């Protein structure tokens, strides 16, 4: 059992990772939620903010999942989940959804990751396993286009290996784009001088976090406890 799964450490669930990220999205932002943990953020958006969610297939103003009887086969998001449209939302053609992405109109994209490097490189589109067909979807467009990229991911792989690495081994999605990483253990900023830990879960030490993170971590002066619902 690795140090970070000891009983005293208040690891976040996938939903809690999504919720913490959602809490930190600036009010009024235009945001895309990628496949994986980010998608979970859609249903836990803070109710005191107005945040406009974008979906690559052509929706601006994505609302929460509908009740089962209200599902509409013409209204799904890019993860192919049933969604709704917020009042004030609009439908656009696919190429215009990517004008928004590529043109730098999205304030933020929350993406999943296989690996994130200390310099902000992101690998999240293929494991390179030749047995399976690769799929890229909108990952490269989002990574290259949004004004800021936040990654939401488990801190380590199922096998316990670090996902925050010195250099990505897997094929890249984009170079140097990640600004912040939300994991089950910490919130880490990617800065020019290195990785800065802004929040850590209760019971965790920097040494324990460093043990499951390849690049050197620096503790922010105002590092606080990572909890959900703390605004």
């Amino acid at each position, binding site marked *: 059992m690795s140090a970070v799964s000891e009983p005293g450490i208040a690891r976040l669930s996938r939903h809690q990772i999504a919720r913490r990220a959602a809490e930190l999205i600036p009010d009024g932002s235009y945001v895309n939620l990628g496949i994986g943990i980010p998608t979970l953020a859609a249903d836990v958006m803070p109710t005191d903010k107005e945040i406009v969610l974008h*979906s*690559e*297939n*052509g*929706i601006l103003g994505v609302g929460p999942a509908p009740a089962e009887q209200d599902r*509409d*086969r*013409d*209204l*799904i*998001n*890019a993860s*192919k989940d049933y969604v709704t*449209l917020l009042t004030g939302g609009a*439908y*656009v*053609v*696919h*190429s215009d959804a*990517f004008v928004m*992405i*590529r043109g730098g109109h999205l304030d933020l994209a929350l993406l999943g990751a296989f690996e994130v490097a200390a310099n902000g490189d992101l690998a999240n589109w*293929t494991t390179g396993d030749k*047995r*399976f*067909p*690769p*799929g*890229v*979807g*909108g*990952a*490269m*467009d989002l990574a*290259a*286009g949004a004004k800021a990229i936040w990654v939401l991911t488990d801190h380590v792989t199922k096998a316990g290996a670090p996902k925050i690495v010195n250099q990505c081994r897997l*094929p*890249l*999605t*984009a*170079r140097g784009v990640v600004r912040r990483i939300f994991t089950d253990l910490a919130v880490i900023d990617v800065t020019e001088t290195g990785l800065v830990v802004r929040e850590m879960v209760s019971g965790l030490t920097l040494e324990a976090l460093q043990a499951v993170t390849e690049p050197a971590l620096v503790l922010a002066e105002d590092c606080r406890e990572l909890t959900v619902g703390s605004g």
Partner: protein
Amino acid sequence: MPIDKIVPDVASAVAGMKDGDAIMISGFGFAGVPNDLIHGILDTGADDLTVISNNAGTGTEGLAALVGSGRVRRIICSYPRSRGSDQFDARYAAGEIELELVPQGTLSERMRAAGAGIGAFYTPTAVGTGLAEGKETRTIDGRDYVLEYPLHADIALVQGWRADRWGNVIYRKAARNFGPVMAMAARRTIVQVRDIAELGGLDPEAVVTPGIFVDRVVAIDSDREWDI
């Protein structure tokens, strides 16, 4: 003579298909897929096809049936593998289908370029990744870009919601997705809609695909849920 792009049935809509054609097929996941037209293509027996679509089909019908028929030589898409993409996965594993993987925004932008007469364009997407390998790059104002070329097709199969005899089309919700940009890109655009509007029945401020981009329209008044 009045312009009348409305044809009576699917067979008339897909008439003229040839072996070797490149076919764009609208849809994203299960929304906006022109399943009736796809089965119409299957019924023509056309072979050696190139399919251009966001996904590669799931379940047993629609795009998955076309891919599973063995008549698709090559597929150009952004995200072939999904829950239920068994038909594609098997053909791919057997080396029976070529895959050109294109980042999703580059996919629709290449279609738009084809429709808009743009010879090529520089995009920041995929710079420094495996999907830009072998492609020309260029630094413009300090940022790196990859050169991408237009994506044309012989035929586009598009699912709309309502259309008139001039070929003006409106869509429904997120089923709009690739339809309008494929309609621009293909040499012949065939649209299936739920029903036909009188000429003038669509708001001229709200037409999404003007008739100039549409060649044939067929109405399919069905609530059938396809296995896709």
